């Protein structure tokens, strides 16, 4: 064997995370696009439904949630796209590191770069639609659990489309069935909070789903990638 210094797992994870975050920072203009998109969509609601604040307040939670999820869908396609095009995904697959963990890191980096800015402006979006201030923490909790779930599920699907050329609409079609439960529970928590009902149960369900997804989704993502690129 060669006398080498093989890096540990933590070291490799940090390398992936650092590179992807550096890349995201270098192209921070792209990072702002989903945020801008969410702002535009949210400002369309009052124009479409009328500025009556009682109505807006009723739909605010769901509208912000759906807007954020759509904005994430917009950015999902780019998760591995450039890595496939420039060959760095192949290099990653050939590295002596567990692919599932590396994929998990890539998904984490993608979540930090796209979902976190959306969560940061979510209170602003909710404010535009007159969401009551008391519900705001529930909105943030729901988003903090629902967005990583979507990133993880989306990661699997993006890996599946890795061998195809275009995937925008295809991703939406594939993601819709998977995100139905996420939307239901996240919006359910918001609705319950708005009506003054206990909202812990749906949040707990989301949390349980997130724990499961954190464990399983990177494995599925790695498996999907191997299947999709095996040709």
């Amino acid at each position, binding site marked *: 064997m060669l006398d080498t210094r093989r890096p540990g797992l933590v070291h490799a994870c940090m390398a992936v995370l650092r590179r992807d975050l550096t890349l995201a920072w270098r192209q921070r203009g792209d990072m702002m696009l989903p945020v801008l998109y969410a702002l535009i969509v949210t400002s369309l609601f009052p124009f479409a439904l009328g500025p009556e604040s009682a109505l807006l307040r009723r739909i605010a939670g769901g509208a912000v949630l759906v807007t954020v999820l759509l904005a994430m869908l917009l950015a999902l396609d780019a998760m591995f796209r450039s890595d496939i095009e420039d060959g760095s995904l192949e290099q990653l697959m050939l590295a002596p590191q567990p692919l599932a963990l590396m994929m998990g890191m890539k998904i984490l980096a993608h979540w930090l770069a796209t979902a976190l800015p959306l969560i940061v402006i979510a209170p602003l979006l909710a404010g535009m639609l007159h969401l009551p201030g008391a519900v705001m923490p529930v909105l943030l909790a729901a988003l903090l659990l629902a967005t990583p779930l979507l990133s993880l599920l989306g990661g699997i699907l993006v890996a599946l489309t890795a061998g195809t050329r275009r995937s925008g609409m295809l991703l939406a079609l594939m993601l819709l069935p998977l995100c139905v*439960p996420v939307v*239901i529970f996240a919006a359910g928590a918001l609705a319950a909070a708005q009506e003054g009902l206990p909202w812990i149960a749906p949040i707990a369900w989301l949390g349980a789903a997130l724990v499961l997804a954190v464990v399983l989704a990177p494995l599925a993502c790695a498996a999907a990638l191997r299947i*999709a690129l095996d040709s």
Partner: protein
Amino acid sequence: MANWIPLWLHKLSSPPVFYRFAGVLRPWAIALAVLLGLVALYGGLVLAPPDYQQGDDYRIIFIHVPSAWMSLFIYGVMGVAAFIALVWRIKLAEVVAMASAPIGAAFTFITLVTGSLWGVRMWGTWWTWDARLTSELVLLFLYLGVIALYHSFEDRRQGARTAAFLALIGIVNVPIVHFSVVWWNTLHQGSTIKLLGPSTIAPGMVWPLLTMMVATKLYYVASLCSRARADLLALESGKDWVRQIAENEVRG
């Protein structure tokens, strides 16, 4: 020992053998399906007594319920075939999984349309966000996703394996969706409608229903044979047995 069963299966999974087998099975399956279907329709539309609670529109169940049953059954078959395709990389399993998807989508679509036609009078609306209907709609999207993913690949086999993976994810997803929609309905205390109410079904209605279920199963077998034959021809177009078929058909 019963060693011949795996041997027979192994032989059957060879594309030219299955092509011929499907060619023999197909006419019998479709003939039987049409025959049983006609019997079931006669029983359901003519012989079965009108329901004492509902009017004659309940007669939609003779196609609605078998279709709904088929939409789930075919997804199950597709899932099993997808699993076999991914684990053992058997070409025929890939073909069966991908040939099942459009048939399943067709039955799911029929279920949604007939259910909505029935629902117009039952609920007074075309659509309600009931757990079953919503799950069925999600099922349709799953089927469409599998079909679209399959066709987005240039390499058929690669597309089949990738779509098979998606089909397996969908199997996990369907119960979760159903559970979440049930929970969602309790939250919003919306329409709690039972598709098949507690009303006892008259025996005159049962046998046409069961006959129709058998007929749709047979139809699925026939259609699967049809699609699998076409897919095998496309997949193996470089092989001699396909070339021979092409030459023979031009003479015949």
